[in-house]
């Protein structure tokens, strides 16, 4: 074939797919693989000018053809106009989809030239998915590259200083655009073995026996390990160590790991896994949180005092009875939210490299100067992984290996999306165990199927919520009862559902609040962190009730929110008095003004469609809070010339998953040192070189790591001013102290606020729902980089549209129905509405330059804004997500006022008792 303009002759097996030949045989790793099932489109390359999915395109079909990949686009350092535009518009976040996007777009531009329209882009990119950007920046970039006059349009913010408030591409974006950025699977250590995991496949069973001899005997198999081969601690877990590294006595969900295999090839490893026989005594299954709470429910974990109750989380403020007695109107409803999946487009991959690994033994090269990668010395066991919490990967792996944490090194590679789904251990420990055992590098790459099966999901919840208010709209009391499906292992359930609990009265000043939340163990996939961290769920219930209340009181939906909105001087449901940085009212004003524009109508008809607006507001804590020590260490090394700083390197072990952290940290250092942002190099996530930046969760990185870098850089600048041309400063930043839940004190260092309005179109013939427009305003304290914030907001909104309309990780009695990507649709470009985004900046005095977190906030209120609009258009209140057009149409036809069945639900929402008494 002709590849990127040059003829290539290859001698490869006829059974290979084009993606394999490109990536493995030719080392062209710019083409990525996300699913291997023709769904995601990120593997797109051009064959004779047309985009094809290389993962299902047989290499031999391309014989004699002209194949073009991302590597062909930039030559000698100059970028193709598309690449340049993607860079300028911030259309690259994690970057895993970027080459597929650009190649698809290239074919389109080659075909249409300047006659290209946004509709053409929508058609062409329909099956090329991006989980990060929400597609807006992608459309803008393609329009610009095709010759239209589309300048980047980051939202308006306060005037920028030298480095803060500057809209800039993320420093690592360029490599992603060129296809040279390396994600874990792009590393190719000489001598690598390939690993696979034997999964339980049954949700709940006692293990009678595990038979591995046939697998071990298969030629090419180098190691087969079971629970007996775990030398150290046999369980891991971020909060409670209840998750077996390898199951020995019992399995608790379908994705449990029972044995692991390393072999010469992935096919051999897969064949070996099929040869492992596990004999089970199957046990009765706990299928959901409500069933788990019944006294006769089977036990997921034996020997606990509370049965399947993982944690009862409470909020108690004021006098709830008195609050309702005072109310003129009370609204009560039970809602249900579904389990959802992160669908980061890069499946999990870990590579374990054994201590003392010598690449020359396997035909590689050793480079004494290299510190990481294929040519480097590895003096201790090292794990290459795209991880949200490198230091916890290290401690958990060390524990399993039975060694001290500093005997393990974790090198965080680029991450193709995380969204909370790459916080828990997946293959890290397994790869390390197999590397130790075999003395070879071991790559454990999950298939999409395995990724779907294994990693924690968003908690499915049932939420009963009662809201009381006076005639004038002032809230008097909110009582909420939540059941959350924690799945088989604790993961971050306590924290996530804690957030659902504390935010269950909404961003309002409510004098009397009572919330009871029950985190329940079940035999479903574990639940953990997913953007929004529990607040997405409770916000749906809170904001739905607020609209119902407004209707009963004949108040405007915007007005009722304004009346109750938190503000400086008001208190949250946990008793925290807000002293500063509450921009909620300004957010509401901005959104209302924009929505109301000219000829405003809440709802109208056009042909067979009905249109309506819906609004919702939200808030989200910044930082861990609740009394947890929230710290980050950062190193800043700076060089000066004649007393003036010239360049700097920032080192911190925080994770970049595409959200733009390196850009934020570089800006902080540049501002303090008085140097251009480009003169700051940011090194993230190598535990041997970078201080611990803590977990990338709870929208905390800008705040905590940003402060650490800012203060380190400040000291560096001071020292440089006094003497020398080179300094190294390490600063350990600790966020202001917070108080635990229940104490009534300051639970969090800051909160971010937002308001969103969604314009929704409902096809009255089919019940189909389309979001046409979203107007949003987010109070982020200070926008350090407006371009990346815009990306976070657009991406977050579109992700929440998925939560409202398309996504449901379906499990039937502990067995996932959602077992391939084709069964889980994330929003595509065709689901993307027009988005107008405003930035509000109410400074947080303790944040870096006033900034607070924004990563999660945008993906919280969009869903209730949509369902509130649906109610306004149809009179039907959707109580269970995601919206099912079949049920919605039925409700409209039958004139019923609620929909209790979401797509994928088998039963109506179960009744629960307020306060959870049974």
């Amino acid at each position, binding site marked *: 074939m002709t590849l990127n303009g040059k003829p290539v002759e290859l001698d490869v*097996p*006829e*059974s290979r797919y084009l993606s394999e030949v490109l990536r493995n045989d030719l080392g062209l790793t710019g083409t990525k693989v996300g699913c291997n*099932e*023709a769904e995601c*489109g990120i593997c*797109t390359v051009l064959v004779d000018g*047309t*985009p*094809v*999915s290389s993962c*299902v*395109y*047989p290499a*031999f*079909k391309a014989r004699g053809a002209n194949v073009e990949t991302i590597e062909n686009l930039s030559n000698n350092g100059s970028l193709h106009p598309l690449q340049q535009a993607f860079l300028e518009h911030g259309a690259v976040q994690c970057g895993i989809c970027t080459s597929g996007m650009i190649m*698809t777009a290239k074919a389109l531009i080659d075909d249409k030239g300047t006659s290209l329209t946004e509709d053409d882009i929508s*058609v*062409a990119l*329909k*099956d*090329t998915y991006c989980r990060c950007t929400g597609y807006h920046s992608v459309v803008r970039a393609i329009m610009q590259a095709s010759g239209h006059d589309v300048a980047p349009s980051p939202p308006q913010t306060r005037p920028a200083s030298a480095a803060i408030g500057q809209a800039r591409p993320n420093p690592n974006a360029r490599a992603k655009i060129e296809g040279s950025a390396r994600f874990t699977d792009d590393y190719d250590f000489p001598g690598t073995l390939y690993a*696979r*995991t*034997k*999964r*339980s*496949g049954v949700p709940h069973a006692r293990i009678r026996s595990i038979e591995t001899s046939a697998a071990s005997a298969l030629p090419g198999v180098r190691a087969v390990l079971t629970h007996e081969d775990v030398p150290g601690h046999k369980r891991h877990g971020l909060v409670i160590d209840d998750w077996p590294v390898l199951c020995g006595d019992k399995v608790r969900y*379908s994705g449990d790991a029972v044995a692991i295999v390393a072999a010469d090839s*992935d*096919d051999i490893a*897969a*064949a070996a*896994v*099929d040869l492992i026989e596990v004999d089970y005594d199957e046990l009765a299954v706990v299928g959901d949180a409500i069933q788990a709470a019944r006294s006769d429910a089977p036990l997921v974990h034996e020997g606990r005092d509370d049965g399947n109750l993982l944690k009862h989380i409470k909020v108690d403020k004021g006098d709830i009875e008195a609050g309702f007695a005072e109310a003129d109107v009370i609204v009560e409803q039970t809602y249900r939210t579904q389990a959802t999946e992160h669908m980061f487009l890069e499946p999990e991959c870990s590579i374990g490299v054994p201590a003392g690994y010598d690449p020359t033994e396997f035909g590689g090269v050793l480079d004494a100067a290299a510190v990481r990668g294929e040519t480097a010395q590895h003096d201790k066991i090292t794990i290459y992984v795209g991880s949200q919490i490198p230091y916890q990967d290290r401690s958990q792996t060390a524990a399993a290996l039975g060694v001290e944490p500093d005997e393990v090194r974790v090198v965080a590679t680029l991450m193709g999306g995380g969204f909370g789904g790459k916080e828990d251990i997946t293959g890290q420990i397994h790869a390390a165990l197999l590397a130790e055992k075999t003395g070879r590098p071991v790559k454990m790459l999950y*298939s999409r*199927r*395995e990724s779907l*099966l294994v990693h924690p999901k968003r908690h499915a919840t049932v939420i009963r919520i009662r809201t009381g208010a006076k005639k004038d709209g002032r809230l008097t009391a909110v009582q909420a009862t939540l059941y959350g499906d924690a799945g088989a292992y604790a993961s971050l359930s306590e924290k996530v559902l804690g957030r659902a609990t504390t935010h269950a009265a909404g961003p309002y000043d409510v004098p009397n609040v009572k919330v009871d939340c029950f985190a329940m163990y079940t035999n479903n996939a574990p639940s953990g962190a997913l953007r929004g961290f529990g607040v997405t769920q409770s916000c749906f219930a809170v904001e739905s009730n607020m609209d119902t209340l407004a209707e009963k009181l004949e108040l405007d939906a915007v007005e009722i929110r304004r009346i109750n909105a938190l503000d400086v001087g008001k208190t949250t449901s946990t008793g925290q008095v807000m002293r500063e940085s509450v921009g909620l009212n300004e957010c509401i004003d901005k959104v209302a003004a924009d929505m109301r524009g000219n000829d405003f109508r809440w709802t109208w008809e056009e042909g067979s469609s009905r249109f309506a607006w819906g609004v919702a507001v939200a808030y989200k804590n910044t930082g861990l809070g609740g009394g947890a020590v929230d710290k980050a260490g950062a190193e800043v090394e700076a060089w000066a010339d004649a007393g003036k700083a010239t360049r700097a390197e920032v080192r911190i072990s925080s994770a970049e998953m595409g959200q733009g952290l390196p850009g934020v940290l570089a800006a902080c250092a540049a501002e303090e040192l008085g140097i251009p942002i480009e003169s700051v190099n940011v090194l993230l996530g190598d535990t041997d070189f970078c201080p611990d930046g803590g977990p990338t969760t709870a929208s905390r990185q800008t705040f905590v790591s940003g402060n650490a870098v800012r203060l380190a850089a400040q000291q560096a600048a001071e020292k440089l001013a006094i003497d020398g041309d080179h300094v190294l400063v390490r600063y350990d930043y600790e966020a202001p102290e917070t108080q635990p839940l229940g104490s009534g004190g300051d639970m969090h260092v800051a909160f971010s606020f937002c308001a969103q309005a969604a314009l929704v179109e409902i096809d009255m*013939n*089919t019940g*189909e729902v389309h979001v046409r427009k979203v107007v949003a305003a987010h109070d982020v304290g200070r926008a350090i980089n407006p371009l990346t914030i815009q990306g976070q907001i657009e991406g977050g909104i579109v992700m929440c549209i998925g939560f409202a*309309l*398309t996504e*449901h990780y379906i499990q039937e009695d502990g067995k996932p*129905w959602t077992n*391939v990507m*084709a*069964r*889980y*649709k994330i929003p595509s470009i065709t689901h993307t509405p027009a988005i107008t985004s405003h930035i509000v900046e109410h400074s947080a005095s303790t944040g870096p330059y006033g900034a607070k977190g924004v990563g999660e906030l945008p993906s919280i209120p969009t869903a209730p804004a949509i369902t509130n609009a649906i109610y306004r258009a149809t009179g039907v209140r959707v109580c269970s997500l*995601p919206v*099912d*057009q*079949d049920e919605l*149409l*039925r409700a409209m*036809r039958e004139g019923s006022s609620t929909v209790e069945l979401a*797509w*994928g639900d088998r039963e109506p929402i179960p009744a629960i008792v307020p306060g959870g008494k049974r």
Partner: protein
Amino acid sequence: MTTASTNRWEHYYTPATVAEALEILRRYDGRARVVGGGTDLLVETRRGLHRPVEAMVDVTHIEGLDVITSDEDNIVIGCGVTHSRIVRDARILKYGMCLSESCGVIGGPQVRNVGTLAGNVAHALPAGDGTIGLLALGGEIEVASDDGIRWMPLQDSFKGPGKSFIDRYRQILTRLRFRPTAAGEGSAHHRVMRPQGLCLPIISVGVRLQIDDANTITDARISMGPVGPVPYLAEPAMEVLVGGPATNEQFVRAAEVALENVELRTSKYRASREYREQMVRTYLPVILNRAVERANGAAS
């Protein structure tokens, strides 16, 4: 659960003639399989849903079968022709609109750029979109085997869901054809989807109508899926239409008759029976009206 083993073939052939392709199939005697774009077969193979074969015989490179041609009576589509090519073809846009529409909704561009209409037909799903479109047009297919080459009506190839009378280990669907719509004729296709779950239509409907100057329907074809194990030709509804006026009342009646004669089913996570019925009630008249508009447009 088994880890999806990567079911592999040993040889991948791209024969240049039908004879060569048949010869390879004969040699492998059931251990080789015909493949078109592979967008169904290879995805399913990767998932471990097919018995492994030793060889794949790719029929998209056969000379003369990778083009759309027309003769006196028919528009003829070779088995190597992709959906993208069909959608862009000016003749099909003019004389077989419902095929263009139905191939145009399949997958995304990456799938349409390699997936073929022949593969869609041979895959024999109850609601393969291209198949529904071609069925409405009254399509025929040509099958080559050791016994020779023969044309047959499209609907005679369906055996059951995913099952075809074409033996995909020994026979090749070489060409597909239909009679172009003439003056007074129009066709249309529509499908209803949901944004979640599998990318399979809730209902896919195609129609072809012929009307005379007095607005009387002189010929009608209605195809639907999924309404049973195989793509369905709604003959009772067609009979209601022929000889009657091309009015909305008639179309509403045709929808009712179509529904009386089929047993729509509730399918898990896709649609309830009631919903499907409602969609037929709503959309069959809509696309019949559209076909009338097109018939009139073409006539004027």
